[in-house]
């Protein structure tokens, strides 16, 4: 049992015991649920364009807010985690997944109070998206701005 050789190879050795995910089925489930969420988003967007006079560019705002509300409600009713287990990336990748990560953290930490519990922990799981999104936008934006305004003029 103290065989160093066994220890070195153990991680590889146990792979045979680990059930492999059903790759095709997981992708199919993700495809269907993710697709359905986006189709629903399209419906909502068209609804806002037709009945609330939003333009195509602006309609994204209330659409995302509506989906966020629905995701928060599903999280609060204890349904989103089950959808998530079924759909995997299909429910995590749409913006509803972002809303779920915030709502679930907020709801979970309610027992620690409103300020130090709910408010402080809300971005526990979603913070990374905002940090990386902003940082990437800054860097890409900087590069593009410099390219457009300085390098283009040189050429």
């Amino acid at each position, binding site marked *: 049992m103290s065989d160093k050789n066994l220890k070195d190879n153990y991680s590889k050795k146990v792979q045979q015991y680990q059930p492999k995910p059903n790759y095709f089925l997981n992708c199919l489930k993700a495809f269907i649920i993710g697709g359905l969420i986006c189709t629903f988003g399209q419906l909502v967007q068209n609804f806002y364009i037709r009945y609330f006079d939003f333009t195509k560019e602006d309609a994204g705002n209330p659409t995302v807010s509506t989906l966020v509300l629905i995701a928060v409600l599903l999280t609060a009713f204890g349904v989103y985690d089950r959808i998530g*287990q079924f*759909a995997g990336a299909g429910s*995590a990748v749409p913006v509803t*997944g972002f809303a779920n990560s915030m709502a*679930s953290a907020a709801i*979970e930490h309610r027992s620690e109070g409103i300020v130090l519990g709910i408010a402080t922990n809300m971005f526990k799981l979603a913070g990374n998206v905002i940090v990386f999104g902003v940082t990437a936008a800054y860097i890409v934006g900087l590069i593009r701005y410099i390219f457009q305004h300085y390098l283009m003029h040189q050429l």
Partner: protein
Amino acid sequence: MILTGKQSWVFQNDLYINATGTAVGPKEKDGPLKETFDVTFDDLHCGEKNWELAERKLMNTAIETCIQKLNYTYDDVDFFLAGDLLNQNVTANFVARQNQIPFLCMFGACSTSMETLALGSALVDGGFANRIIAATSSHNATAERQFRYPTEYGGQKPDTATATVTGSGAALVSKEKGKVKITSATIGRVADYGIKDPFDMGSAMAPAAAQTISQHFKDLGREPSDYDLIVTGDLSGVGSPIVKDLLKEEGYNVFSTHNDCGLMIYRPDQNVFAGGSGCACSAVVTYGHLVEQIAKGELKRVFVVATGALLSPTMTQQKETIPTIAHGVVLESVEVEG
């Protein structure tokens, strides 16, 4: 008790589990062992306002049920050995605050049940205590919240994951005659075979279990056939075949004697991935179902090996591997005299 071999204790006096108490949550209440639990709760909150209070309720209930079976009060117990999964062992601490029994707080992750039982038995055997209570608890939501994600988070778990048992088990040990005897114990050493995935603890804990089991055989000069059952705590679906194969390489064939509490406590259709885990897994199965079988004489000698993964979320994020440990206690049925 004398030190036997490298890591085992063979108790010199006759020690007995005089009574046990078990309390479990809704999923366990719905499982195959439902008839063997003393108290069951229909809701995961156990009527409390947050998860941590619910876990304390489970432990308090298990201990109270245990001592009430003997018509004892807390004053009749000399020492309380307990632990749980939460940071700083708060469940055990706050329960000890309530019951006011002199308290030895212990942490062995999911191996706490046998760790507390072994050490408590050693105290009684050595004359350091007359009666002790060994208890442990775990709760699905408190464990998820602390080790993984908020309970409503939609992240997808792999099939190697296990479901933390919501429950608590307590046992009272003394020299007074009972139906279940504690004869020996083996204390484990920490094993680490390089597994990093916190969603696959079965693979991480199997070597620790194999180490403790094989050392037990060597220390006591025994073989698998000397036991009716060798049961591990929560290796579940992934770790169980691994431990059997690891022991086979050592020359011990446990294929017909081995079972795992994590596989016994739930049905496969209960959405539990690879099976059950948590401190309460080994505790409620042992102190409920197994003790019942031993008391009736249906199992004569059982080696219960509780397995624990000694990780924390910080360690996982720092890319550390998972150290694990396993402690075992031998429970025997009392021979019928005459």
